[in-house]
């Protein structure tokens, strides 16, 4: 029963949500709306689960003095300081705003900016024309890199149009193929879950 009842609920809700898209009857739409509102309610609990998990993992790390355990202290201190500043001072509160603008923004921007340096190093060492496919990719990448910035337009006014064509035709064709494949996979996965073939989401053994 512990397995059968959840499977029946998943099957019933899943099939109902699927057919509700095609049936404009009032009661069907209202029930579909109600189920979606419940889902939004459930999502609110995810935040608490997330915070509880971060705390558990980092407290464990500190207790066991695992590698870089000092960073876990900083993480936990700032986690609770930000939560406290937000709850007691509100989103416009002085401390919350101060921490957001003077810690979170510059730190996040710095982390993201580091990518440019690693990309440059990788471009030098790894972006090599080792075979025809890699050569094609390399030529396209160089054209897009130059054509997507003003220097490309400065070199040749037709560069941006060439890049737009690359994006609109070969890029779109390849992306569509990939995404169609992904979506077919998603549909088959959803059907497996609905029909009870895929049960790993329930945890434990079958």
């Amino acid at each position, binding site marked *: 029963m512990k397995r059968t009842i959840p499977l029946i609920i998943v099957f019933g809700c899943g099939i109902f949500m699927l057919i509700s898209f095609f049936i404009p009857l009032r009661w069907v739409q209202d029930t579909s709306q109600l189920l979606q509102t419940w889902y939004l309610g459930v999502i609110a609990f995810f935040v608490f689960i997330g915070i509880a998990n971060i705390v558990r993992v980092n407290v464990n790390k500190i207790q066991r003095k695992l590698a870089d355990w000092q960073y876990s202290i900083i993480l936990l201190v700032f986690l609770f300081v930000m939560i406290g500043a937000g709850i007691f001072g509100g989103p416009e509160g002085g401390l919350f705003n101060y921490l*957001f603008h003077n810690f979170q923004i510059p730190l996040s921007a710095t982390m993201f900016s580091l990518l440019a340096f690693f990309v440059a190093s990788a471009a030098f060492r790894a972006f090599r024309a080792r075979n025809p496919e890699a050569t094609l990719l390399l030529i396209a990448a160089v054209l897009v890199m130059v054509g997507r910035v*003003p220097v490309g337009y400065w070199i040749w006014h037709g560069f941006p149009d060439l890049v737009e064509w690359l994006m609109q035709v070969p890029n779109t064709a390849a*992306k569509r193929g990939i995404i169609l494949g992904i979506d077919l996979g998603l549909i088959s996965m959803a059907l497996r879950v609905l029909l009870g073939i895929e049960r790993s989401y329930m945890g434990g053994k079958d």
Partner: protein
Amino acid sequence: MKLLERLAKIDRRIIFLLVGLAAIIPLLIPIGLPVDITKPVQNVYDTIESLPEGSIVVVSVDYDPGSEAELYPATLAFIEHCFRRNLRVYMMGLWPAGIALGNDAFAEIAPKYNKEYGVDYINIGYKPGGPVMLLTLGRSVADIVNADYAGTPIDSFPLGRAVKTARDMSVVMTFSAGDPGILHWIIYFNARFGNVICGSTTAISAPRQYQYLASGQLIGLLGGLKGAAEYETLVDRKDRAIAGMDSQSIVHVLLVIFIIIGNIILLSERRKK
């Protein structure tokens, strides 16, 4: 040949230094390279220009400080354009940290045009739930929104009362750094309610949006800082995106030089073998 051998073993810190210099020097000594306008950016501009005064534009701030350098200049330019055209801006966010950035943008632009909070613009805050939230929002805003970002009841604002369903939203403009973001607006909101969707994404995720531009599900796109610079050019607001273009141009040229040198080294190694 010795030079190539030396280059092959170059310390990566030298590469980092060169990239740093290529990024910083053009910021200090601007070159002023011309910015061309691409069709996806022109489409966003034309869409906003075509709206009658007082129309409501939904601005979804779906990014966090990590993408601030690329997407915040676009946010500023777009909001300035909306205010200049006397459009009303209904802001929300699918990412929690985006809300504060959106408020910063309002604080920077609204006083310039004497715009009043709650009347000309509003921020309804972070909305979790991804696709399900968007589907509910389009059907009945009241089921999702009962207060603004600061907790003030939404019905106490004229603009809050004006938006009831997706039909009240003339255009949705999403500034998106990933998931949830632009794809959710296109796949769920546009598909279900038929709203006009425009977007601004980081340069790395712009190529994925071209298929939706081709299908007409996405009307216009600002791709990366370049897209923001184009929009700044269109709205005649020379700000940080245009300033960043020289820097980005030089870094891109440097990357191309690195790739060429790397491949010359590969060729010389092959010849030796």
